[in-house]
């Protein structure tokens, strides 16, 4: 039984897989995570473990410190307390250390993180509006949102109308990210593709709820069978001969039609 885990996004790099394909991966520093509280059905009504991520200095409130002290884990680098539901929490104990070894390469994980804040963004950036024409006498309309709706009927703007507003800095979950590799020694998880949020931000990783059947596989060069043409095409001796061959081919074709 595995729990989710708390990690930190380190950034992106690329990795060659076994057959020489390049995969763009995000590196997540995953753990060590410490068990700071165990929830049991008897006491709490459900099973879960609360984890803390180690490796990032952050001031904690007195209440949080007291909570960690109770678990015997008071130290400066613990942060980002988070609870993960498990089927049976009896196998976990306070202070237990979890690392990224519980995630297997080739499986899928779901990632939850806070996306990069974009501030107050206009409709073009936030909703992919097209904006107005660039030319033909336009002024001040290049990135305008356009019409918000009809006129007297309904006489109001519908709720949920896409408009400018705050964008980003929201919790985003990315489903089914392929685990390309793990490095338990250095507590690293390599996940294919991008992950929400800036570098050094906290990322929550869990086993995929609805795993994909198949991962996206980048193509192997050459992506089409064109090599034979370039390498083995015979040099053209002279144009006349080629014209002859073409004429013959055409004649054969017309014969076949008859």
């Amino acid at each position, binding site marked *: 039984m595995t729990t989710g885990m708390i990690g930190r996004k*380190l*950034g*992106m*790099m*690329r*990795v*060659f897989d076994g*057959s*020489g394909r*390049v995969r763009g991966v995000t*590196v997540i*520093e995953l753990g060590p995570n410490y068990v700071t509280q165990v929830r049991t059905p008897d006491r709490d009504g459900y099973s879960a473990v609360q984890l803390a991520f180690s*490796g990032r200095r952050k001031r904690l409130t007195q209440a949080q410190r007291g909570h960690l002290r109770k678990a015997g884990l008071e130290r400066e*680098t613990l942060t980002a307390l988070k609870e993960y539901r498990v089927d049976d929490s009896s196998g976990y104990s306070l202070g237990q250390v979890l690392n990224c070894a519980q995630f297997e390469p080739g499986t899928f994980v779901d990632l939850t993180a806070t996306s990069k804040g974009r501030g107050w963004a206009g409709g073009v950036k936030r909703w992919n509006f097209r904006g107005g024409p660039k030319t033909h006498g336009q002024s001040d309309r290049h990135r305008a949102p356009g019409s918000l709706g009809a006129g007297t009927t309904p006489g109001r703007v519908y709720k949920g109308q896409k408009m400018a507003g705050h964008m980003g800095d929201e919790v985003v979950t990315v489903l089914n990210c392929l685990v390309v590799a793990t490095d338990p020694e*250095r507590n*690293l998880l390599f996940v294919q593709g991008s992950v929400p949020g800036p570098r*050094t931000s906290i990322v929550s990783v869990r086993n995929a709820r609805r795993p994909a059947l198949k991962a996206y596989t980048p193509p*192997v*060069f*050459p992506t089409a069978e064109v*090599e034979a*043409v*370039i*390498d083995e*095409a015979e040099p053209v001796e002279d144009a006349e001969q080629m014209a002859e061959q073409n004429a013959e081919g055409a004649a054969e074709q017309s014969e076949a039609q008859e």
Partner: protein
Amino acid sequence: MAAINLTDLAQPRPAHLPALPEFGAGDTVRVQARVVEGDRERLQPFEGVVIRVKNGPAGNFTVRRIASGIGVERTFPFNSPRLEAVAVTRKGRVRRSRLYYLRGRTGRAARVKEARRG
């Protein structure tokens, strides 16, 4: 705890492959690349002028050649397991690091002077 530098994680060139020679833009090289054809793998040579070298943990280089009258450029990552070997067949003397100007030229105009020895 010190942050991990991602460039330290970059994969090196596979150890079982021969080391690559030194070469730069303007040199003519013969690259042996692994190519999968159906269920068969073979080495495919690709010979041409290096027009660009990008260094760093994810470095690569681009080789340009004229194949059947058509300019073909192929970019090889230095640390790709599919890059079997590189042989320098000619040292070129060039005054810039990116030889993109070769793209607009054909025939005699697209030549690179050979470097003088010593």
